[in-house]
């Protein structure tokens, strides 16, 4: 279970609070969605979960599997099953996709006490998953994300997620930039990972994604706080009414 308790986060080198007492619980086996206006702090929450520098948790806690992850390095969190699909995946010139994936998979396996995969086993493992996401293996010979289209980058993120086999999946606007077919392919990928062992947090602006990945709960985040939670129908409501109601409440 993911438990975020009254989390306050400010920028490390600026006196500006971004998350202002955010509380959220996602039991394993569930998919929760967060929607909210631009700048409300959704990506900040995702980064703080993954352990990015530049943010300071001033109070509150984040527990995963009953254990606080706040003091853990990003790679320790990854080993514990935390995965963030970035809103803006980064390009790594000069590092081939396969090399990157193999390094990551073996690092995580090592940390989880599993034997490393041999190169042929690894290739088989990745190729099968890449095919299902419609990712050409030639793309994986190229440097990570370099020269990829926006949609290709998002699919590559999902491939990383699938091969790393995380238990807490955070997807930050994975749907933006995807065409209709890619949206379905990515959603199928995400749905295939739904399991009683996994918790997922899907950040999105569009209700359409939630037709494919039907969430157990939907949360509305405005100005660094969850303002309302509900079932999947809340997303449909938001689609019609927008955030005005919550923003006035926040002000």
């Amino acid at each position, binding site marked *: 279970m993911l438990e975020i308790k009254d989390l306050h986060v400010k920028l490390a080198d600026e006196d500006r609070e971004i998350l202002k007492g955010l509380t959220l619980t996602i039991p394993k086996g569930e998919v929760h969605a967060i929607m909210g206006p631009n700048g409300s702090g959704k990506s900040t929450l995702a980064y703080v979960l993954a*352990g990015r520098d530049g943010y300071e948790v001033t109070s509150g806690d984040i527990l995963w599997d009953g254990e606080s992850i706040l003091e853990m390095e990003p790679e320790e969190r*990854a080993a514990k099953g935390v995965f963030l699909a970035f809103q803006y995946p980064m390009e*790594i*010139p*000069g590092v081939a996709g396969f*090399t990157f994936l193999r390094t990551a*998979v073996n*690092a995580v396996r090592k940390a989880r006490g599993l034997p490393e995969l041999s190169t042929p086993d690894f290739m088989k493992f990745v190729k099968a998953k890449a095919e299902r996401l419609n990712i050409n293996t030639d793309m994986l010979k190229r440097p990570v994300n370099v020269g990829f289209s926006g949609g290709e980058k998002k699919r590559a993120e999902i491939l990383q997620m699938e091969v*790393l086999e995380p238990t807490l999946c955070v997807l930050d606007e994975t749907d933006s930039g995807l065409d209709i077919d890619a949206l379905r392919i990515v959603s199928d990928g995400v749905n295939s990972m739904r399991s009683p062992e996994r918790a997922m947090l899907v950040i999105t602006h569009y209700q359409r994604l939630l037709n494919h990945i039907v969430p157990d709960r939907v949360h509305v985040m405005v100005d660094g706080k969850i303002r309302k939670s509900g079932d999947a129908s809340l997303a449909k409501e938001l689609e019609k009414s927008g955030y005005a109601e919550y923003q006035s409440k926040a002000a």
Partner: protein
Amino acid sequence: MNVAVLKTKAEQALSEAFSGAAAELPGSSEIRKLRLDAMGRFGALGLPHRRVEEWKYTDLRNLVKEVLPAPAASKGVSVADIEAALGALAGLEAHRVVFVDGRYEPDLSALVANEDVSAASLATLLDNDTSAVELLDVSGRDDDAVLALNTAYAADGSVVDIAPLATLDKPVLLVFVRASETPAFVAVRNVLRVGEGAIATVIEAHVTLPKAARDFQLNAATKVIVGKGAKLGHVKVALEAGGGVHLSNWLTELGPDADYAGFHFTASTGLARNQVAVTFAGEDARIDLSGAFLAREGQHIDTTLVVDHAVPKCVSRELFKGVLEDHARGVFQGKVIVRPDAQKTDGKQMAQVLMLSPDCEFDSKPELEIYADDVVCGHGSTSADIDDDLVFYCRSRGIPEAEARALLIESFIGEALEKVEHEGLRDALGELAHNWLRRIEPARSVA
């Protein structure tokens, strides 16, 4: 030049040792005279120091305080020892020619001369061939004291001839192994002659046996003559490990329409100076000089290039990438001369370093001397640290920080390695860089 300079201890020792060494050095009386003249020039010039413009950042007089004796006789070096010392390069399919402490070792070599390629021992040629004087001759570069020392002291080396129109099936790998258990001074001179229209790759690999002394002084020079329309990939790999001094000089002359790709891979040499001088002797020739240098602790790696566009319509490209850790120092000097006649010259130069510690230092001095008006020339130099956002991206995928950094540095270096055309060699260099970044020492891990 003021001849009455106060000699340093090292300079005196080099001059004095020569009279003893001269009798042992190969060569006819004509060659003896050449050596003696060279020693005379060295005596006048002395070791280069910081007030000599080209040596501003590498003050040899100050860095080399004493001169090491000749190597102790090395006994029982085996092919297996060589393999271990070569590390990632051992797997390379190549015509192998081995030198131990600067002396040719036919028993460890595996080059069968054929109609396409031959590699003779310089010592043998100097003793037996009256025309061999040109092998040592470096007239026109009389002001280079390090080269003068090389001419005076070079006892052996490889003279590689590639026949016109030959396309070599595999690279020629010249292996220079450091074996002496006592610190030693070694001078080698190589000559590469690539016939018209021939295609070849020649590698000079400087490696170390596990038991060799840490300290050493190497003075190596290679004369390269690339014939009309010929194509040569010329790569030096310096992996001597240790606190020694590695002074290297490449003198390359290109015929018309020749294609020359020179590459320097230098890792962890105490003090290295890689000097390359290229002269275009015919139109439409192309050069690509590139390299990767990796230095940590107090290591100092200097790359000094002089590209002389003496004729029109030639193309030059230079890309050097360095990684500096601790208080290491990198030097890059790239001089491009475009003579008045050399219209339509196209030259581009770039030097980039990753500075991984606040204590390291990088001195970059591009010098464009352009006397023609219809030319395209450019240069650039950057120094940076690793991108923290990329480090985080890797770590968020479970890759530990040190590994993430190594991966990113490798990718930075990779861009230079891409310049090496031979795939097996490129991969081997990639592995050497990979190991260096993770502090895996090939020679020692096998032993």
